[in-house]
């Protein structure tokens, strides 16, 4: 039982990092940015490469995050901005971002091969501890620590002036623009930050499990589910959703069967969607 809780915590941390970025983008740009999974995967592969070349973990993660941020800039600058000029509907964005995910995922597969890769982690992180019947590794502790750190940073950022602009853009794009807020620059910032988080999460996930080209897809899926559960665009709700999803996943692996893990999580969310379309915590 304690093991399930501990597993849920790590699971939830990973989901949370991706979900927050996703939620942030949705709040501001008002569409499901499936390309988020692309940066998640890119982050994983960059971390893999850097660790392979012998760098230390912190460096690898930071660089992965920065490269992820750059990818976010690219997606916004080259694709989404153009769609925005045309006042495209959210469905068009959705399909376009799906295209991005497919392109990036398959590029990674072509470059690195479709098989899974294991990241080389220093042995210090491999050692495990046992606490009241639950087993966890130092790596997992690090994941939680990084998650908490980044999430706190995010919330601090949202209180800054730029964060204020971001929030006002989310609330009322028209009015924000009228007040002189540079929408294009804000969008770049949003995608940059969100993608940074996703990329770091990808690196962390890679360390926890393995990396493979399709990881972007499953990574985003759970993030989306967490956001939807907590109410799209509601950041606090996203945290709650991630925790719940982490628990659901770990519980279903332990108590039911591992191969049904995805389906069960999906069914939980689907039922929730049908019953309470606004999410557990209603977003304003």
């Amino acid at each position, binding site marked *: 039982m304690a093991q399930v809780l501990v597993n849920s915590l790590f699971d939830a941390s990973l989901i949370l990092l991706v979900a927050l970025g996703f939620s942030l983008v949705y709040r501001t740009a008002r569409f499901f940015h499936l390309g988020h999974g692309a940066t998640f995967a890119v982050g994983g592969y960059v971390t893999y490469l850097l660790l392979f070349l012998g760098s230390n973990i912190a460096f690898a993660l930071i660089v992965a995050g920065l490269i992820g941020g750059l990818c976010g800039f690219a997606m916004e600058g080259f694709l989404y901005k153009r769609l925005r000029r045309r*006042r495209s509907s959210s469905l068009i964005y959705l*399909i376009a971002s799906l295209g*991005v995910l497919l*392109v990036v995922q398959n590029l990674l597969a072509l470059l690195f091969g479709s098989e899974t890769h294991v990241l080389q982690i220093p042995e210090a992180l491999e050692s495990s501890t046992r606490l009241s019947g639950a087993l966890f590794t130092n790596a997992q502790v690090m994941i939680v620590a990084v998650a908490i750190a980044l999430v706190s940073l995010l919330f601090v950022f949202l209180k800054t002036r730029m964060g204020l602009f971001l929030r006002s853009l989310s609330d009322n794009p028209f009015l924000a623009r009228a007040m002189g807020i540079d929408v294009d620059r804000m969008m770049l910032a949003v995608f940059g930050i969100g993608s940074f988080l996703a990329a770091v999460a990808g690196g962390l996930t890679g360390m926890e499990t393995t990396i493979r080209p399709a990881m972007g897809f499953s990574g985003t899926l759970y993030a989306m589910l967490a956001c939807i559960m907590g109410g799209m665009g509601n950041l606090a709700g996203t945290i709650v959703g991630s925790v719940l999803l982490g628990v659901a996943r770990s519980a279903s692996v332990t108590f039911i069967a591992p191969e049904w893990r995805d*389906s069960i999580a999906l069914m939980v969310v689907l039922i929730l969607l*049908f019953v309470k379309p606004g999410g557990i915590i209603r977003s304003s």
Partner: protein
Amino acid sequence: MDYIIHILILIGIYAILSISLNLVASAGIISVAHGALFGLGAYVYAVLGATFHLPFSVALVFSSLATTFTGILLAVPSLRLKGDYLALATFGFAIIAYDIFDNLLLFTKGPMGITDIQGPDFPFQVHGKTWYLFLVTAFAVVTYLLARRLLQSPWGRVIRAISEKESLVTFSGRNTYRYKLVTFAFASFWTGVAGSLYSSYLSYIHPSNFLPMTSILILCMVVAGGMGSLTGSILGTSIFICVPEVLRFLNLPSSVAGNTNELLFGLALILFMLFKPQGILGKYLSLNE
């Protein structure tokens, strides 16, 4: 020649799917569950045919009824959701369906697939698969004509109005939910037909034939061909089936080929959304606000 017939048969089967999805999309519903319903139809037909040895027409009808029923089951809660969420819910269904195909060994024999699926008893032998081509084309034509009839009828006008401004349709006194539900049920029926044809033609099905990606593929066919344009759907289907086949001639190793295919699909989606969101032959800018 056999090869061309094979391609045409595949185009025909997928055309049935994309025409029915186009119908649904004309009502403003973006469903990424069509591949899953297709798979359901295929599996039901396979089980009925291989295990219970039911004749072709009976199994086809049963599988189509099964997909219609499941489609309704899916649609009833999902249609209450707004556009993006609807797409996600249907996609969630597609993922769950694939997991069921893969894991429910009792019915679907999972990754081992179902073999020896019987096809219809044709009156006389003709060259190779020509009979199948005839059968599939017949069904495809029927689907096309029915869909066109539907779209051009007063019912179709309501459907298209729903996709453009649902609130106005409700305002004019119509139960939009019911219109959408019936449209979805009707489209689901045809996925069963397509699934049965697919099952009987290939005589072997496997969960990998019905990945969530398959649903996305069918959506790509509709998007590329043009929402609201049935001829466009046929065009889109042809493109998305022929291009991977053409790539086959480049003799890429199979792992690379699969990824290249998907990469091109993704690229196609991006380019279409950037430059021609209504698709090649799309008449309605129903994707734009």
